[in-house]
């Protein structure tokens, strides 16, 4: 919402430097007003129109998801509609008008059976006291700001963890602060108590929290802002435009008035002088990345929306586009990157919201300012087609460069060449003029590139990094392993701070004595071991169940084992005919024609330990052969959860007798759910008499939301050959601190034993019947499993009760179960899980 009467001024000051710069001219041709990616984008992220009732104007300004899954939209016309059916494959939603007569809604949230509505004049609680479906109570929560010019917009955040809401107040006529507190962010406590929180705003377009729960707002290009930007808001922070300084006397809680910023400086230097000044966290280079960025939201869809989980998605009004952004804190300062995502929406986007079905609902209007989309107003849904685009996933900063992660493995020839990573940098002046040029442009050279073995990330070393500069990565030359070009070749990282090199820097060259024994492949994941007692050893993890999300947990364990413990690891998956990891595949009980496929089982020959998480698989004979060989090899085995019924057609014979993999190798097989399936959870209790076992070293607080398996008959016991380490006590519910279910006795959930195959060689075996992907969010369970790996490899002495068990990479696995649709479980390439 930044357009104003001075377009011509902005255009003039922007044009001159661009025309003069050769890079600018080149870029204009290649990127320009349109990214030119619309036709390719639609294959991965189609846009679906959400029909509206005839003669109803819905200029969406804010969205809220209701507890029952319906979606509420607050409009510029001051109405609130509740929409049912937005997620339907062919959406024909029903619209119910809940409230009307409000004044332009740019903030909507549902709390305590009422809407909290940020309208131009105030923050209001809107409720339906007589339950007739139409609002009848409108209670003023806060109106602690002046409102005296039409351009004085108010944007409200969702409540934070403590229930506080933040209202961002645009300036008067977009330049001045004539009315009380214009240019401030106000903090409204749950009881309505309102205090000034931050100053220096110009024309905000949205306010909310990022993936880390930190507060940000979107600022528009204009005076003191050469581009739109995402700004990190902290108490008493000042955001660059001094017009609001004269309200400080009314708000002692803000502290002293900041020093008056000097026009024509740089933000990176001025922030040292003006101590409340917070540098822009993410700059969106003007026009190339939006012209009026508005509302934003975090992708918390657990993968339903594709590979960009936990990232921010932002709409742009003028260009009718969507962009992504990521944030990180370095030396206590927020910064991050932005990325193109989707163009070609039908109207100016004012806000976005993720639906319960994991789709991105976008809405807005073209009223008042220039907009590329041709519809006066529209609701549209962007959804993930399930196809993996080749994209820059995230750019993060390193002490001497950047780490870039990708959604698909990068082909090594282009991926290892520094020439594939073109970097240019610019900064903006910090000045009172409207908008401003990109100045001090230069192309810092890329001196080195280390492409990860899995091809999913690259560390690039850049000649020189400078705070206050935006680094534009143009990776047009990169190719994926299937020879695709990037869907969007650019990313823009704003550097405010540069991290110092860490002691055990992640960028240290891999020091593992031997090379990883398994070649890289799109069919599996490989992680070279870093430093640790596992150096030189190779563990193969098999993720092949349909229920407990082993495709999430095994890569996580592999990363942990490689990064913190030094093991080379390889994760093999059960894949479908498209070579996608496919937990939705049927088993032979359901479909007699099914044969499963785990590519790479031949690598069991070169590994030292297998961690198996399969369920009811029917593998072809040539693959089973590798498993049978392994059982003969005397090499150790860790089985997790359903591994004890890991195979249907398993025909390993010992002394001519068919062995039962669960009973004979692992020491027990699933008989029934002792705990209540998907209703209760399991607390792991260490078996007192065996607590000195090395596997239990440092293990505490095992808990997971899966239930206890019964592996022997009622009244029976764990076989003599097994040494129980942990028993599982069913709880009453699925929370960590739920009460013990006194009706259910604890049963063994983890034990050790040995196995001897046809060659007479004896192997150590560890079996744990817990282990859904969410169970592994328990550090206790991770430590138990990693300790078991050491023990299995006869490295008992290397078990360290203080060794690192923290997660490597993001780990927010979906719930267990077969409700694939609800959980967003779809076939995906192995690289997705890397």
């Amino acid at each position, binding site marked *: 919402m930044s357009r104003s009467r001075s377009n011509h001024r902005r255009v003039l000051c922007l044009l001159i430097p661009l025309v003069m710069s050769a890079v600018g*001219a080149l870029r204009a*041709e290649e990127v320009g007003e349109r990214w030119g990616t619309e036709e390719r984008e639609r294959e991965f992220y189609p846009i679906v*129109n959400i029909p509206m009732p005839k003669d109803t104007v819905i200029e969406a300004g804010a969205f809220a998801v209701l507890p029952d899954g319906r979606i509420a939209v607050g409009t510029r016309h001051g109405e609130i509609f509740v929409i049912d059916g937005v997620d339907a494959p062919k959406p024909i939603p029903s619209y119910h008008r809940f409230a009307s007569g409000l004044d332009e809604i740019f903030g909507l949230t549902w709390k305590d059976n009422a809407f909290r509505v940020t309208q131009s004049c105030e923050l209001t609680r809107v409720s339906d*006291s007589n339950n007739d479906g139409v609002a009848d109570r409108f209670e*003023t929560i806060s109106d602690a700001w002046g409102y005296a010019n039409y351009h004085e917009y108010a944007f409200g955040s969702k409540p934070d963890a403590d229930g506080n809401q933040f209202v961002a107040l645009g300036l008067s006529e977009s330049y001045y602060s004539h009315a009380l507190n214009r240019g401030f962010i106000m903090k409204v406590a749950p009881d309505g108590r309102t205090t000034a929180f931050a100053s220096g705003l110009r024309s905000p377009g949205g306010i909310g929290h990022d993936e880390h729960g930190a507060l940000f707002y979107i600022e528009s290009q204009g005076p003191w802002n050469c581009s739109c930007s995402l700004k990190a808001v902290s108490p008493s922070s000042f955001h660059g435009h001094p017009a609001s300084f004269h309200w400080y006397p009314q708000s002692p809680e803000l502290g002293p008035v900041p020093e008056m910023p000097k026009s024509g400086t740089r933000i990176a230097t001025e922030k040292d002088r003006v101590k409340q000044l917070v540098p822009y966290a993410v700059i969106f280079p003007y026009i190339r990345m939006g012209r009026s960025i508005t509302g934003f939201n975090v992708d918390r869809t657990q993968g339903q929306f594709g590979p960009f989980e936990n990232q921010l998605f932002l709409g742009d009004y003028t260009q009718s586009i969507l962009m992504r952004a990521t944030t990180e804190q370095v030396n206590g300062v927020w910064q991050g990157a932005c990325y193109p995502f989707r163009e070609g929406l039908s109207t100016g986007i004012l806000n976005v919201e993720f639906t319960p079905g994991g789709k991105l609902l976008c809405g807005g209007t073209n009223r008042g300012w220039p907009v590329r989309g041709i519809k006066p107003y529209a609701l549209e849904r962007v959804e993930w087609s399930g196809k993996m685009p080749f994209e820059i996933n995230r750019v993060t900063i390193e002490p001497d460069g950047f780490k870039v992660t990708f959604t698909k493995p990068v082909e090594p020839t282009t991926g290892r060449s520094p020439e594939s990573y073109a970097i240019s940098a610019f900064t903006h002046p910090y000045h009172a003029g409207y908008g401003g040029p990109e100045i001090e442009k230069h192309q810092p050279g890329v001196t080195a590139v280390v492409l990860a073995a899995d091809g999913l990330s690259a560390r690039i070393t850049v000649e020189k990094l400078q705070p206050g500069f935006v680094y534009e990565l143009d990776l047009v030359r990169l190719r994926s392993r299937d020879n695709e070009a990037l869907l969007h070749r650019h990313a823009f990282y704003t550097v405010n701070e540069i991290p110092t090199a860490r002691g055990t820097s992640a960028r240290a060259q891999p020091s593992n004595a031997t090379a990883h024994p398994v070649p890289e492949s799109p069919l599996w994941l490989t992680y070279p071991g870093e430093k640790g007692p596992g150096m030189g050893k190779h563990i193969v993890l098999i993720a092949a169940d349909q229920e407990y999300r082993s495709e999430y947990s095994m890569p996580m364990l592999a990363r942990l084992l490689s990064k913190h413990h030094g093991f080379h690891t390889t994760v093999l998956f059960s894949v479908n005919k498209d070579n996608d990891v496919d937990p939705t595949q049927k088993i032979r009980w359901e479909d007699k024609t099914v044969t499963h496929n785990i590519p790479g089982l031949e690598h069991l020959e070169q590994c030292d330990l297998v961690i198996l998480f399969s369920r009811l698989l029917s593998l072809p004979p040539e693959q089973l052969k590798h498993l049978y060989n392994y059982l003969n090899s005397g090499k150790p085995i860790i089985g997790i959860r359903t591994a004890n019924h890991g195979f249907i057609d398993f025909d390993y014979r010992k002394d001519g007798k068919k062995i039962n993999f669960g009973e004979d190798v692992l020491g027990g097989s699933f008989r029934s759910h002792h705990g209540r399936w998907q209703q209760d959870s399991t607390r792991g209790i260490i078996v007192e008499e065996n607590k000195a076992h090395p596997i239990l070293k440092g293990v505490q607080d095992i808990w997971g939301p899966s239930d206890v398996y019964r592996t022997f008959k009622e009244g029976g016991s764990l076989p003599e050959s097994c040494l129980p380490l942990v028993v599982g006590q069913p709880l009453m519910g699925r929370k960590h601190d739920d009460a013990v279910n006194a009706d259910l006795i604890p049963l063994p959930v983890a034990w050790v034993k040995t196995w001897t195959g046809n060659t007479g060689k004896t192997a150590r075996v560890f079996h744990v019947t817990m282990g859904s992907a969410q169970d592994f969010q328990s550090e206790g369970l991770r430590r138990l499993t990693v300790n078991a790996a050491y023990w299995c490899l006869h490295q008992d002495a290397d078990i360290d009760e203080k060794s690192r068990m923290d997660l490597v990479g993001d780990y927010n696995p979906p719930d267990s179960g077969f409700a694939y649709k609800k959980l967003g479980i779809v076939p995906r390439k192995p690289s997705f899980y890397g």
Partner: protein
Amino acid sequence: MRWRHSWVIIAFMLSCLVIANVVVAGGDPAWPGHHPLTQVQAGDLLLLELRCAACHSGLERGSLPEKTAPDLTAVGARISPDYLCRFLASPSVTHPGTTMPDVLASQPDAERDRIAEALTHFLVAQSKAAFQSETTEQIDRQQGQTLFHAVGCVACHGPKEAPPEVKKRNDIEDEDDDPAVAAKKAIKPVVIPLGHLAAKYSVSSLSEFLFQPLQVRSSGRMPDMKLTPAESLAIAGYLLGEQPQSATALVPQAPLVTLGKQHFQALNCVACHALPGIAATPRIASLKTADLSRGCLSQTSVRSPRFDLDEPQVQAIMAALREAPTADSDHVVVAKTLTAFRCVTCHVRDDYGGVHDTHNPFFAGSELKLGDDGRIPPPLTLVGAKLQPAWMKKVLFDGETVRHYMATRMPQYGTANLQHLPAVFSRLDVLNGPEMKIPHPESRDAKERENEKVMRAAGRELLGDKGLNCIACHNFNGKKAPVNQGIDLLTSYERLQPAWFHSYLRNPGAFRPRTVMPTGWPNGIASFKTILDGETDRQIEAIWYYLSLGTSAADPPGLRAVSTKIMVDNQAKTHRGRSRVAGFRGIAVGLPEKLSYAFNAETGTLSAIWQGEFIGVNWSGQGSGDFHPASEPITLAQDVSFVLLTDENAPWPLLPVMTKEAKTNPNPLYPKNVGYQFRGYDLGDSMIPTFQYRSGNIEIEDRTSAAGTDEQRLLQRVLRFDAPSPQTVWFRALTGDIQKESERVFRSGRLRLTIPPAETKLRALSDEPKRSELLLRLSLPQGQSTLEFLYEPLPK
């Protein structure tokens, strides 16, 4: 203009275009309708549509996706078991025109029924749900009938009732002598019969199918007509009629299910109808070498399934199989695709296709004055040169449309089925014309910028009412045109390719023979000589420049800004927004008695009263929409109403005044520093709001409703106080040129105010000594108390 010399060529080319809404030639009779296919091509298409390659090897892959058989997973819930059994026993008798072959043709009659029964049991057992013939929903069959004929169903299925007689037009009496017309008349329309539906479906199962047909029939031959569930239900109800449906429930019997499954396997039904757990048998003999007189095509063969084909169809298939396989040219791919998906039943392309005369009367639209352009789908000739590639995909795959006036809907065939089409169109359709490249904003030079300014201004002038007045018949940026509401002009730049736009503007008639769209440049000569020196090409380019601005284009002259009228019906309406009569935190209330008032919530003051209609809201600019009373209001002061004056001679605290010179509020905490806080409102009886606010520690409820008679309406305002302790508070009841009519009745201008018994003080206004203010000294008791005021608007 560097392209001007090529203009002659363009003009020549256009004159050669044969574009007409009439159909001249029909293709091979093996396929119905106005298609252009030769016998071999029609045969190729039949091979695809009948899925011959499902069983036979030796067939090349077609150039478009083949027709698939319906998904049978839920067939038991969708189709009456009784019908299913009869259909399996004898497909073409039960459903004339079906593409399902009689797979039991080789069986003796008794055996056929037995197998059909077993298959039915097996299929019904596949479905989770059972067939329900009853529906409890209300069905609007009348709407169904209207929709069936209007949205486009009729183009492929024909009308359900006898077609209306086509009136012979007097002016074309002699047409019958024209061989082209005679040839055209010989072509039968595409009519896929629907007579079997009533026995086959229930209203609800047909309705579900119509809502999302591609879920069952994924190959899009029956497209998604963009129906809502309610519309689907109405059409289903209409098609099935009112006769009660008697479907006997079928409980699958295990032995029959097993037997049915064996037959399903043995008959290789799975070759076309995939079912989990059943594998197709290997394909049989190549059709290239087969004896075509003996197998499926023969009506007497007892060794194979039998297709119900007529002689031309058999001949076409045979001709296609004899022909050496060659790759289809782009032209043929388009022709086959438009034929297979029956695009030709609505659209003309080159010399084929178009709405059949017998179906023409059903095509309707809301903008009658647009003529055929307003009701007949647009021609597809040169469509690949007309539409921007991204827009073509939006139309084909996303259901996008700009012709809001056209009743016929552009169906959706499924992305997978027409994915090949946009690229073929764009290779095939080339219209050489000026590219009208708009210089890029980031890279244009000073000269280009100057030119741009001139061009945009000229374009704006041409579109406006002093120019070509395009906005008379075209909507502009969502604003409705006064005469016809043709396609919104602002969509042009997004949708159209520049060369096509240029050529079309020069001579719309070359593209649409009977279009109502005039040209502003008859014979290439500009009608407006003063704009851009009357240069035709530059004028058209200027319009393109102007439209390229999208919504940032300033409205053309003559376009009226619209104010949205908000009406009040039988309940009160409350509208919040800024207004000169109520401040920025204004609230307007309209009563059904045609009496309205405004409340300034920033100060807690009744600030305006008016009679008649409610308000207009300006939702056309950047703002949130300011409101203005629909008739001239009686305006009242907007300063705070309640003050705890310690000195009764102290001036009333006035709303701070901001001027253009001094815009910053000098007293930003007014009125909070006089103890006022707005707290909200409840909507009570008849949705009349009760405002709640606080003055000091007094809680005030303020409700104003209509009173009096129809002849003399007045407003009754009730103020309820809740004070924690007895106290005195001053209320400013009225300002202006006040005349005291009696102890309790005062008048100011057009307002007569009746106050409750109270101590009053009438004194000069502090800032306007000639006018006065009426203050009431209210002594409020502890707890609740009430005061009533009457506001009577007087005639002028």
